[in-house]
């Protein structure tokens, strides 16, 4: 079952107005999310891949390098972010902003994008962290705005 399609069905069932209630609508939403990810990669050459997934670990839209299994990355992202949220809250540090992982061969950022989605971004090891983060923040804002529009 297509997740994006499902979410709109849920909203409809709950009597909420949804911008897109059809298969067409979910296709459009995915295309918009992919556009945002494409924009991110164009603006920031250090980004090697990105995926938008639900907090429950389902993949929504991705621009991942060949060979990456989007389902696994979506699930791992939500698990890692959920645990990080708990850690930050339990330490009394308020709401979590993002998780940064420095790998030997590259970096990974995990961020909430609105309350239903999260964005995972992969960047090159030698990339400018501040610059990549600024672009990542911009993409998060775009996604959150898009979803807020869908929720109205």
């Amino acid at each position, binding site marked *: *079952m297509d*997740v994006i399609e*499902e*979410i709109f069905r*849920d909203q409809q069932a709950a009597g909420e107005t949804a911008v897109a209630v059809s298969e067409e609508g979910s296709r459009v939403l995915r295309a918009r999310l992919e556009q945002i990810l494409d924009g991110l990669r164009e603006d920031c050459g250090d980004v090697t891949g990105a995926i938008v997934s*639900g*907090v*429950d*670990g*389902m993949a929504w839209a991705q621009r991942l390098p060949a060979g990456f299994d989007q*389902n*696994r990355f*979506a*699930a*791992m992202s*939500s*698990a*890692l972010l*959920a*645990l990080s949220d*708990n850690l930050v809250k*339990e330490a009394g540090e308020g709401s979590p902003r993002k998780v940064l992982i420095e790998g030997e061969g590259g970096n990974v950022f995990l961020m909430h994008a609105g309350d*239903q989605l999260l964005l995972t971004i992969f960047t090159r090891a030698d990339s400018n962290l501040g610059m990549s983060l600024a672009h990542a923040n911009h993409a998060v804002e775009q996604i959150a705005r898009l979803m807020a529009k869908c929720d109205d």
Partner: protein
Amino acid sequence: MNGMAQEKIIFTGPVGAGKTSAIAAISDVPPVRTDVACRGEERAIKDTTTVAMDYSYIQLDDGRRVHLYGTPGQARFDFMWELLTRNGLGLVLLINNDHPEPLRQLDFYLDAFADFIRQTGVVIGVTRMGIADRARLDDYQARLFERGQVYPVFEIDGRSGDDVRILVQALLAVLTI
């Protein structure tokens, strides 16, 4: 390294079997939970689902502390199964009897955790027995027999501390044999 080893048991089983509830029901402290809102098909079963793990601990009567880990039920989180069972003492497998094919669920989880079970041990708790009598305890035992396995099977309520404590005691008893 041994001084660092913690005694931990792992709760697993399908979505909605009651893993998160069971750990909450017996733990000494508020558990670490990673439940998020469900979507789609899962929403029909319940409102929230575990995406990383549940964690807590209990003090046994003999003073031993046992750490409790709950896995996510969804198969897409199977990478957590492997992580959480590492160095574990044994497995508590919860099966939701209010499922179209609970015995297939039993097979699936016994197979998925086969290596861990072989090295340690398992007890099985069947939940929601009262709601749906799709399979009875006999049926579970018969299926285990077909598989050539003998494990303790209990009917439990995942929300009942007494029920879950019995499961844990049974597991610890199995492990010392």
